[in-house]
């Protein structure tokens, strides 16, 4: 649900960066999203298309780089991604601990004409 307000922030940011550089048209925006943020890329894309109308970002392609959350096994040190309803190690079954990854949400780059 909160994709609308975060997408507005993203569009504002793209416009600001374009203005700073006197750019007329942004053709691509790359955004990094961590799995743990719960942000849904489909919704962001939908809102982006609407909110960027009549701006330098209108029609720009939105590219997402999704960062998976990672856990480290307390027992064997294996680094793994979660599966549903368990944070346990798929190798030895011991409990994992969240590695600081998966909370990202930032704009990485823009492409311009």
């Amino acid at each position, binding site marked *: *649900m909160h994709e609308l307000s*975060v997408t507005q*922030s993203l569009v504002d940011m793209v416009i600001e960066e374009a203005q700073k550089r006197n750019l007329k048209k942004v*053709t691509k925006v790359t955004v990094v999203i961590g799995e*743990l943020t*719960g942000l849904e890329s489909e919704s962001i894309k939908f809102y982006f298309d609407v909110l960027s109308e009549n701006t330098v970002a209108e029609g720009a392609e939105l590219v997402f780089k999704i960062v998976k959350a990672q856990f480290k096994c307390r027992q064997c040190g294996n680094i793994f991604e979660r599966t549903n309803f368990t944070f346990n190690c798929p190798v030895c079954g011991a409990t994992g601990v*969240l590695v600081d990854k998966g909370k990202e949400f930032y704009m990485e780059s823009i492409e311009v004409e």
Partner: protein
Amino acid sequence: MDEIVIIRDVLEANNNVAHENKTIKDERNILMVNIIGSPGTGKTSFILRAIENLKVPCAVIEGDVTSDIDARKMAERNIPVVQINTGGSCHLNAGSVNRALKSLSFDNGIVFIENVGNLICPSGFELGEDFKLALANVTEGDDKPYKYPLLFTKAKAVVLNKIDMLPYFEFDKKFFYDGIRALNQEVPFFEVSARTGEGFGEFAKWLEEKYYKFRQSK
């Protein structure tokens, strides 16, 4: 086609205001606690019970989509309260808390922010609070840490409410707490019932210590 690398936090506008809120509340000697939980988890009754048990003066910032039912409950008990109606938004943002803080005539104590009932969106927005408190409850099930990990990752306290309902629900405490520990190794756990008052003595003692430490640190 030229690619320009610009790394910017999408939420920076919110974070800047959150930073300002932190300065405001620090100047006013306020420890600010952001209460996040699902609709019906008992946020309002939790806050009321907590205030009953705390020896430190308290005030409340009430976030709600449209109503002022919760704020009226606070006002009836002479608790200083400011209502924020988000008008449909699923979370509080730093801007709305900024306005609320400025209109709240209260210093030297604890301010509870009752966020909008939702486990996802409020977790993503910094408000300038000292910490987030995750309020789960027995009746909503033991799988919440697995379904909504961000909240439990960020929380500095996890409270399990409606503990008196434990005999009537299949709530696997081990599964619940194991999930949280995987996400957050330090966070303290509390078990309470806002209905009976059970567990609030321990919670209030912990929060008072936090408050006094906060005051000493300045």
